């Protein structure tokens, strides 16, 4: 019960902090002071109090988009175990449900973007759905590998099953898996090298351009939803890459939060040292991730 409450609190409170840490890291690399770590919280509160501008072209789909996206991402966040603690909702086959919830969220973001009739947003929507369709097979290969390790179809089980012993036993496979999932994490959350979350008006960007016309509370929902999605996929990554447990529940929560912040720093470092790759190269990189995780599965078959 305590774990469930902490899980809910963590999902609700922590995600914007990750964004702040990423921005802070990038600022440190650039030699700037940077915005405070809590900047996204201030932004969200500010946006919630603002009015909204709607395009005359839009219909109810545009208003429903952020709502459905946020709801789907929040439900998805209840399926993923945080640290060594089982998720509040877990059932056999929930990993499929998880992937499809993210799909639903993406679907609604994309049609809300197309609702504005802007060619920029149409372009962003096309790229978002196209790239994610290459990322999903990679995720499923990774899930099959993990399911085979833990003999289970629930996210809570397959992710908490990974321990340092598993790493020692199947190190090569795990290493490939971690690489693949890190690529998926960056692609799905539209980070560099796939997308640049800072640019709003260039032809190379994906996610940011889809939400150009959203404003006020709707934009707050979108920013928050994006942060939660980063948190959820980040938790997925941390569970596999950093499988340490002390046995003490509260201490484990501390380790988990620290690991998440570490991940945010890592993403910040990646964004600072890498350039965005060309759009046509993105599918190749994602197919590469698929091959990595398929290879991880093959190594498990021995």
């Amino acid at each position, binding site marked *: 019960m305590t774990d469930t409450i902490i899980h809910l609190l963590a999902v609700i409170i922590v995600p914007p902090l990750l964004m702040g840490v990423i921005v802070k890291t990038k600022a440190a690399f650039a030699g700037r002071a940077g915005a405070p770590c809590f900047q996204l919280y201030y932004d969200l509160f500010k946006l919630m109090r603002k009015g909204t501008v709607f395009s005359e072209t839009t219909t109810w789909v545009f208003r429903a988009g952020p*709502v459905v996206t946020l709801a789907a991402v929040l439900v998805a966040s209840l399926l993923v175990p945080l640290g060594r603690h089982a998720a509040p909702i877990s059932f056999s086959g929930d990993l499929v*449900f998880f992937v499809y919830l993210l*799909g639903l969220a993406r679907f609604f973001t994309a049609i809300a973007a197309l609702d504005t009739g802007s060619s920029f947003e149409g372009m962003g929507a096309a790229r978002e759905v196209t790239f994610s369709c290459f990322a999903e097979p990679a995720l499923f290969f990774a899930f099959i590998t993990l399911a085979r390790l833990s003999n289970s179809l629930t996210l809570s089980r397959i992710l908490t099953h990974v321990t340092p012993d598993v790493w020692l036993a199947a190190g090569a496979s795990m290493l490939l898996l971690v690489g693949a999932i890190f690529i998926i994490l960056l692609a799905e959350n539209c980070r560099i090298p796939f997308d640049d979350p800072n640019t709003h008006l260039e032809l190379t960007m994906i996610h940011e351009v889809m939400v150009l016309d959203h404003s006020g509370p709707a934009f707050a929902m979108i920013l928050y939803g994006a942060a939660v999605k980063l948190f959820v996929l980040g938790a997925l990554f941390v569970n596999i890459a950093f499988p340490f447990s002390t046995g003490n529940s509260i201490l484990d929560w501390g380790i988990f939060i620290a690991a998440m912040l570490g991940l945010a720093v890592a993403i910040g470092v990646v964004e600072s040292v890498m350039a965005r790759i060309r759009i046509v190269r993105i599918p190749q990189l994602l197919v590469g991730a698929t091959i990595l995780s398929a290879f991880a599965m093959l190594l498990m078959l021995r």
Partner: protein
Amino acid sequence: MSFPKGVIGNPVFQLFQKTGSPIESFGDDPLFARAHRRPLNADPFRYKPGVTSRQVKRRVAVAINNCEISVDISFDSTYLILASAFIMAVSGVPCILAGAVAGQRIAMLLTMLASIAGEYAAVSILFFNASTTAYSVELPQPFGEAAFTVDNLSLLFLLPLYLVVFCAAIYSPAYWPARKKRGATRLTIFTGLFAASMIAVTIARNGVLFLMAWEVMAISAYFLLTADQQNQETERSGRVYLIATHFGTMALLIMFALLCAITGTFDFPPRCSLALASPYSTAIILAALFGFGGKAGLMPMHFWLPGAHAGAPSHISAMMSGLMLKMGIYGILRVLTFFNLLPPWVGWTFLILGAWSAVGGIAVAAAQRDLKRLLACSSIENVGIIFTGIGMSLVGMQIHSQLLIICGLTGAFIHVINHSLFKSLLFMGSGVIIHGAGTREIDLLGGVARRMPVASALFLAGTIAICGFPPLNGFIGELYLYAGAIQDGISNPLPLTAVVAPLLALVGGVAAITFVKLYGIVFLGQPRSDRGAGSHEAPLQMTVPIMILAFACLFFGLYPVALVRLVSPAVISTAALSAETFDMVSSVVPLAPVMLANGLLILLGLFTGYLYLLKLKKEPCEKNSTWGCGYPARTPRMQYTGTSFSGLIVSQLGTFVSSSKVSPDMHGDLLPAKASFAYEATETVLNQILTPLFRWTGWGFSYLRRIQHGQLQVYILYIIATLFTLMLWRGR
């Protein structure tokens, strides 16, 4: 022929052997002696021993042309289903007698009545153990006995059939009003025949009867899809369809002839009665795969499908895509159940062809510019998913994995029902768009949602369902397939079937692109041409059927237990498992938490939406134009088009589909010359393999034209020569 290695017992329908034989001849009267009554106790799930059919109430005997037909009539469920087929078949007759306008109304009422009766019968058999009877009619000598029986496999296909036919019946008079459009009489007559023949296909138990029903179905579909006589494109695709379907029928003729050669009769052999070692068994399976697979739209026999489904009137497309394709799936399942063993290659062939169709179908769909062609191509994908599920279960039978058998079959059967629902919804919805805007070209449409709010919301439901997103019904079928594949990845030493999971994910991803494109470009944004701007909401008669189907999608999505309950009898009897095994194994996908999570998703969505609406009421809302990145003179034609939306993925899936572009040449003498641009999606299978093949065949056979020159005397000579040769051969 024997398969010493690798052939493992196929448990299909073993339990049917207990009950498969004709049980009693009826009465002492010689006229009725041929009419058999067989209790259908195929299903241990709910069959109570001792419960037989109700009392016979009436007997009818008719003698036509020496062919004595004797039928027992009792008002049980099978009788209701037969009666519904009969009423549908004759529902078009008033059109001839009373004129097209009144006839169309009468046909609508008759068809609705018949569908309600039939659905009642199907549900009462499935849920309330209503008794069923086998009816049979004696056919002229060599053909055996025309038997009709309803079993669980038939019911699986009858259930969605009645619902979709009911919806199409309401839809038809509004979409194709006899007052305004030509060809309404033809449409009405053949719609009834089409529906009736599909019912007959599912309940026929005799090869000749089956083929007769099959041909009536195929030919009435031809007359339906060419209802729009003015359109040359439709004429052409009708011709292609006619050729393709008769290639299939040819294969089926061969198949039934071979079956007859083994069993000595055209009656369907009892389940599990054919040994794999029996001669011709490989040929039978291959012929069935060709004939039925072609009707189902399995790649590479799918080439007739997009044109045919796109050209037909929309409710006919709904029936063809939602129902007629399923008849191919029904046929192949029925034939597989005749065998007690299946060679190992069958499962893998199904799996590979299914996966190929799924990926290829959706890749071709993504590239389409035509609304209905896109939907038709996505039917190929869905048939591919169904075949993948069936292939998975056949592979499971070979490796004795009950989990693969159950997950594969359950997923495939659920998808059979689901696809009937959402594809019919989408086709009827596209009819509403065509009715309102007058074009099928995606890139000319746009902003339809503002003019048709009701239709657009319903269409969105269909789109979400077909992408397989929760909380609608499409998710449930896919969940079973994924669970089966991943479980195989866990337990199998060499998990080849596990690859189905990432493959389905890829298919799902491309499906999402396709349907975001379809919905986003057609319904949202601004109209891209005057046609799109002129659209208006459809009459209630057209929206109500779509509402019924959308409600069914939502209901089955939120209450998947009902869906599993509908398909479980068919799964249990096809896989010859006990109900306990089914319950135990299918619990790998627990439905209660899925329902809970779906409910949570909806509640959270409604709650957030409610808060957001409250907020919008309080805060000032400003209306402005879309942010054009500083460019003030935007026009609707600058919007992203469907072609550009799918351009990225089409360029990546070049193996299956490529786009042929004719780029403008703008070099003039002084000023740029007039230029035009054309884009066409070209399909690899069709354009690279089938078209050259047909061209070469045509070239090869062109020499045969010399013997066909229209001189009657010479033709008579041919006949005499043929007869003489045959007599020589016979007398040898």
